[in-house]
């Protein structure tokens, strides 16, 4: 049997990058297949992340550098795994590559975007703003290459881009391609999606402009976000000085996500910090069932935020949200358990601490997946030689995802070497 010491990693987020880099640095070859036009996943969308509260690039930059320096890593963006055939040690993987319409000559000069006449919803910012149909996914995108969104830009619309580019980087002839990769082991690292607000009927069903998810809050607070880091609300751009956080929006709920999503309490505490730092006269109210701050140092962060008299913690899960049709202010309905009464309180904006929904439920990875009763990927039921990592198996923060991905790398190394 031919020795196949290559590893496929599906998903180019923090877990996937780590798994691929660790495998490659140990001497194997690794492929990364990423669905979006950039690497970095959810971490790239975060404004600041734990524990140092640094911007995402302080971690991603190192990973990208390791990828650039390592000839044994190949990555494909705008790529999707269609099918995984074969056995452990000898997988035959079909990958579909979507056209980028921009080649490696791109220098990121922005001329194509300036010339482009069409716009598209910016999915990187959860649709809160628009970009041109020829766009750079975000300011620090890796690979640093523009991309043309075919669905928002017909061939006629692409022509001005072609004419504007001085570097011969636009290639309108690009077609979808299917390639075949032969690998010995596979890592599933497709990560998570914020739980769909539309399913939360008592929390506004995603229909209210000033009710946003915690991931949208990260984008709003990011300097490269839709508001350049100014925390203002979507309906009218008003400064958000009176904000509520609704914890467990879909998590710990047998009607939605059965499990605790691990990161949401810390995320909301961090968001409270964003608001309090930006507006010293702001008021924050956090509605919770239990505040959970897993990790060695994280309780300290909780205590710090708790000491702020302008951050109020109210025990009680929000189970009703209404919107003032004129002002678009949001009113939440909750039982204040310690005070013993049902209250209605109005806010400029409300952030739902939506949990982590397993991404394989909404996108395919080419292999059969079974789920635990709680709706997470059942790692033990995967085909031999295929390993799930990070938030697919259990909600996790960045640090735990990295640890888990390193563990998956050693599993892959063992898997391909013991044959």
């Amino acid at each position, binding site marked *: 049997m031919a020795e196949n010491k290559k590893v496929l990693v599906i998903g180019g987020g923090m877990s996937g990058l780590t798994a691929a880099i660790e495998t490659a640095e140990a001497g194997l070859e690794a492929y990364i297949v990423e669905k979006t036009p950039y690497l970095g996943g959810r971490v790239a969308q975060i404004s600041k992340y734990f524990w140092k509260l640094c911007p995402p690039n302080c971690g991603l930059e190192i990973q990208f550098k390791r990828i650039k320096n390592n000839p044994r890593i190949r990555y494909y963006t705008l790529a999707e795994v269609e099918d995984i055939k074969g056995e452990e040690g000898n997988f035959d993987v079909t990958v579909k590559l979507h056209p980028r319409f921009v080649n490696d000559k791109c220098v990121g000069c922005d001329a194509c975007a300036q010339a482009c006449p069409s716009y598209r919803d910016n999915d990187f910012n959860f649709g809160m703003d628009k970009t041109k149909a020829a766009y750079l996914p975000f300011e620090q995108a890796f690979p640093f290459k523009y991309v043309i969104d075919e669905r928002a830009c017909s061939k006629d619309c692409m022509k001005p881009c072609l004419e504007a580019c001085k570097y011969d980087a636009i290639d309108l002839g690009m077609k979808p391609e299917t390639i075949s990769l032969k690998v010995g082991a596979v890592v599933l690292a497709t990560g998570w999606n914020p739980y769909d607000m539309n399913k939360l009927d*008592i929390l506004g069903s995603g229909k209210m402009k000033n009710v946003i998810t915690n991931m949208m809050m990260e984008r709003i607070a990011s300097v490269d976000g839709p508001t350049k880091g100014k925390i203002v609300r979507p309906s009218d751009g008003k400064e958000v000085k009176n904000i509520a956080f609704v914890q*467990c929006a879909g998590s*710990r*709920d*047998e*009607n*939605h996500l059965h499990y605790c999503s691990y990161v949401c309490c810390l995320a909301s505490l961090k968001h409270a910090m964003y608001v309090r730092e930006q507006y010293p006269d702001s008021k924050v109210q956090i509605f919770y*069932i*239990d505040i959970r701050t897993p990790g060695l140092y994280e309780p300290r962060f909780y205590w710090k935020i708790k000491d702020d008299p302008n951050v109020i913690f109210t*025990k*009680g*899960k*929000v*189970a*009703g949200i209404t919107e003032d049709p004129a002002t678009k202010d949001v009113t939440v*309905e*909750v*039982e204040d*358990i310690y005070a*013993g*009464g*049902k*209250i209605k309180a109005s806010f400029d904006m409300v952030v739902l601490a939506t949990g982590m929904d397993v991404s394989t439920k909404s996108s395919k990875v080419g292999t059969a997946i079974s789920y635990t009763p709680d709706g997470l990927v059942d790692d033990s039921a995967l085909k031999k030689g295929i390993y799930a990592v990070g938030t697919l198996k259990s909600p996790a923060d960045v640090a735990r995802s990295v640890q888990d991905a390193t563990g998956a790398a050693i599993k892959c190394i063992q898997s391909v070497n013991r044959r």
Partner: protein
Amino acid sequence: MEQEKAEAPETKVAKAAPEPLKDDSIIASPDLAFVNEIIKGGGESVKKCYQCATCSVVCNLTPPDNPFPRKEMIYAQWGMKDKLFGNPDIWLCHQCSDCTAYCPRGAKPGEVLNAVRKLSIEKYSVPAFMGKLVGNPGALVLLLAVPAVIFLIILAGLGHLNLESIRNDAGKIAYSSLIKSYYIDGVFVPIFMFAVVSLAIGVSRYWKDMIKTAGVKPKGSITSAITATIGDILSHKRFELCNVAKDRKMAHMLVLFSFIGLAITTAWAVTYLYGYEIMHAMGKTPYPWLLGPSPYPLSDPVKWLANASAIALLVGIVMVIMNRKKNEEKAGKGGYYDWLFIYIVFAVMATGILSELVRLADLALPAYIIYFSHLVVVFFLFAYAPFSKMAHMLYRATAMVYAKATERDIEVK
């Protein structure tokens, strides 16, 4: 818990007797036997509750101050029965099941409160052993045997066990010929009085417990609270506030108003029979509209009301059953106690309608047997009313009156 822990060292240092707690927190001693009774009574999900208070928020029937059912769930988990029993809230709950549908833990607050209500009826039962018997599936045969034996003894005493040959003077099947109304009334009037007295005692104990537990005496006029309560009950406006179990309004209305219709029918028939008999005994010629002993012709208005009520009740109770089946997933299955009451009402109606139809079809043996079972289930319904779910009408009404009189009730538009 945290508060207790924080306070403990201080009292140790001071070596003083623990000071009474200044806030309204309490030191609970769990009554596990009571928790198990709740679990057995249909509240098996009680321990799943993690006190998030979604239930109190989605409930449209709770007053905003100290809302239910979140606090009842923790009382139930700790077995704090005094807090539960002397509490109007367990009855202000109409089991819409909105709480149960939205509960993130499947703790089914609606079902738990229903189990607490069952235990509450049991607690206030006079005599107490009857409450235990009616709530216990093992005692069902015994409870049915009591009326069966009573009526069999009467029949045997009358020598009326030869069912085939019993006819009235006109040669027709007549239930009044099987057992004369005096015997039936001789059984049912005392039974009815017993139920009324038993319920009155139970309800007055409940009232006293509410005053003791809540520490709030009713203010204002009780009469106006009673009038308002009756208005609320008849209009069924509270049912309209339910979301999951909205359809129950029509079903419950049909059942309630049919019972009222049947009560009028009974009074009407009593007038026909005893009015006739009294005039007869006084030596006068009874008025022609006093028809005397049954059966009455289908053309008579009393039969119109009787038959209309019977059909409405049958439709109503079938709707109750169907609604429960339909909402089973969201609202829970309901326990033995619920279904016993529903099926007894159904049996009363089914045997009632069948005994009329089979009588008209002139099938003597089946007619009398069905009529006999009708008497047995009607006995069951009335004699055991203070101990079965039938008692809900008085306990819930009492809680509503108390809530109105203490300004705890919500305003229903």
